């Protein structure tokens, strides 16, 4: 006998939020590639991108200069901003899910402070070499970020388990230790202090196609693994004991997902500095609009995180051109009022 249909609506996983988010992302990419000191019309941007991607000659008649600006300068920067935004939003959503804490962001367990400390050492030491196209600054930032997170994780171990509250506290402690060391390096190193500080604030001013490879190899596996755990992360919203009773290997999931999210964050920070706000707010924004189901929340956070950071980078590089405003200032300045408005309009509990 066939089972009669459930008399209630199934939790619908409609595709339109994702479709909408992707449309927003595409629009953000085009705007990001079109806007700048030399304005390039949108249709020209589309033709240049399509001609490069397909090899068809669609860009004939457009100034050679436009083609270089769009393809060699703006597009790498736009895509890098997108990858960083996607990494931070994904890591933020992952941390919020695993720590069951709405205040969690990608820098929760000391990644930002560790990265800043690594960067400060690299600048103060004044090393000059490249290793597989990575500058000392990139290497030290990445290493500092991973070291801080790794030490926090080891400190928080209790037997075979890592209680998330302990991990959070260890992260805060390691973070403030690294921050104070960084502050000391900043004030004691004269002119180099400003260099450290402006690096920490973050930005995309030295983007190139090659630089994308510093981040993409970390973001891709992180995205695959975290998205695959969407349903499991829903179950972990109960609490760890209930998740265990429902068959989830909680410690393994925590180690795996914190691991890949931290790697992606460290890579993002090593190419773009410590950009705040994206990882905290984008997942909340998605949750407010479309609810707490991680199977939907995680991909939407990635796509909208990318779009948000691409759009935030446009004023960062144009308002005070030719100099730049750190993009982290823009993300907070533009995002906060919008988010607070949304928070007031939607009063129901969503976390």
């Amino acid at each position, binding site marked *: 006998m066939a*089972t009669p249909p*459930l*008399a*209630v*609506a*199934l*939790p619908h996983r409609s595709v339109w939020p994702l479709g909408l988010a992707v449309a927003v992302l595409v629009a953000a990419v085009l705007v990001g590639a079109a806007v700048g000191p030399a304005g390039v019309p949108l249709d020209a941007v589309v033709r240049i991108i399509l001609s490069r991607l397909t090899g068809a000659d669609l860009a004939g008649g457009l100034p050679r200069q436009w083609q270089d600006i769009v393809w060699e300068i703006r597009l790498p920067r736009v895509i890098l901003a997108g990858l960083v935004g996607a990494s931070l939003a994904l890591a933020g959503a992952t941390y919020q899910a695993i720590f069951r804490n709405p205040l969690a962001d990608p820098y929760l367990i000391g990644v930002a402070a560790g990265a800043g400390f690594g960067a400060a050492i690299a600048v103060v030491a004044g090393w000059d070499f490249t290793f597989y196209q990575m500058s000392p600054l990139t290497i030290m930032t990445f290493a500092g970020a991973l070291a801080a997170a790794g030490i926090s994780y080891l400190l928080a171990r209790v037997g075979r388990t890592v209680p998330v509250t302990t991990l959070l506290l260890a992260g805060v402690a390691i973070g403030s230790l690294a921050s104070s060391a960084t502050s000391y390096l900043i004030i004691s190193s004269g002119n180099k202090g400003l260099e450290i500080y402006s690096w920490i604030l973050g930005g995309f001013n030295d983007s190139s196609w090659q630089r994308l490879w510093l981040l993409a190899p970390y973001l891709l596996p992180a995205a695959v693994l975290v998205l*695959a*755990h969407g*349903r*499991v992360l*829903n*179950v972990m*919203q*109960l*609490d760890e*004991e*209930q998740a*265990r*009773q*429902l*068959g*989830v*290997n*909680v410690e393994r999931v925590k180690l795996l997902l914190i691991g890949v999210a931290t790697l992606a964050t460290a890579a993002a920070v090593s190419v773009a500095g410590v950009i705040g706000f994206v990882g905290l707010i984008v997942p909340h924004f998605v*949750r407010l609009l479309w*609810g*707490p*189901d991680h199977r939907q929340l995680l991909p939407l956070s990635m796509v909208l995180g990318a779009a948000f950071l691409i759009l935030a980078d446009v004023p960062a590089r144009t308002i005070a051109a030719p100099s730049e405003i750190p993009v982290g200032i823009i993300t907070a300045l533009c995002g906060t009022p919008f988010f607070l408005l949304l928070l007031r309009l939607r009063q*129901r*509990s*969503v*976390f």
Partner: protein
Amino acid sequence: MLEIRDLTLSYGERVALRDVSLALAGGELLGVVGPNASGKTSLLRAITGVISPRRGEVRLDGSPVHRLSQRELARRVAVVPQNPSLPEAFTALEVVLMGRTPHLGLLQSEGRADWAAVRRALEETDALHLADRRIGELSGGERQRVLVARALAQEAPLLLLDEPTAHLDVGHQAEVLELVQRLCYREGKAVLAVVHDLTLAAQYCDRLAMLSEGRLVACGSPHEVLSPELLASVYRTRVWVFAHPLSGRPVVTPAMDGTDQRGQATYRQSGFTSESR
């Protein structure tokens, strides 16, 4: 189904259970009773492998619990925890669906069998109309029904309940326990329920196990376990036990025999003693 042998359990220095042995078969409803901190919840946690025993072992259908993966264990044992945290933004249906977790692979979505199990669980617990409601909007009794439905959706042969009637009014208490009885008798599930209320435990359970300070002090029919002498020594208070007028099972109330804890006269009732049955 469930076999517990010489189980000793401790949290650091504090011993929670000492040499407890119990067995439970399908279609049997065992009530675990005892004062606060007597080890009732620890017993449940040992069965679900949350804490590993210092000595002895817990076996499910012959396999030791500590050898089973988290997933295999969740297919055999479903738990209704006591007053657990539930994310308020999820709907009741989403929470009941989580019961299917041990049956689903990482990338698998719920299929026909899962929907059928969830539907049956919702019908069984009379919670179908709650499916679309958010957890934050449910009353205590409704939340409890959703939790039982989640455990049923797990389709495990052993069901553990940690004080399923706590915080419920008498109507909901009867409803939940009648449901548990039905699952046990009709579906052949083995059910182990921690019940604080001795009278309720006696009315609904075939067999009671009494824990005191981590030891199993009695196990048997409600009449055997709920003797005034044992209750007085375990609960350190005098109680009055008499037969329920319809079921004949024991009813337990405080003795109210004229003295409070400081020995002052408070209440006088003539004609009965605390030992009367």
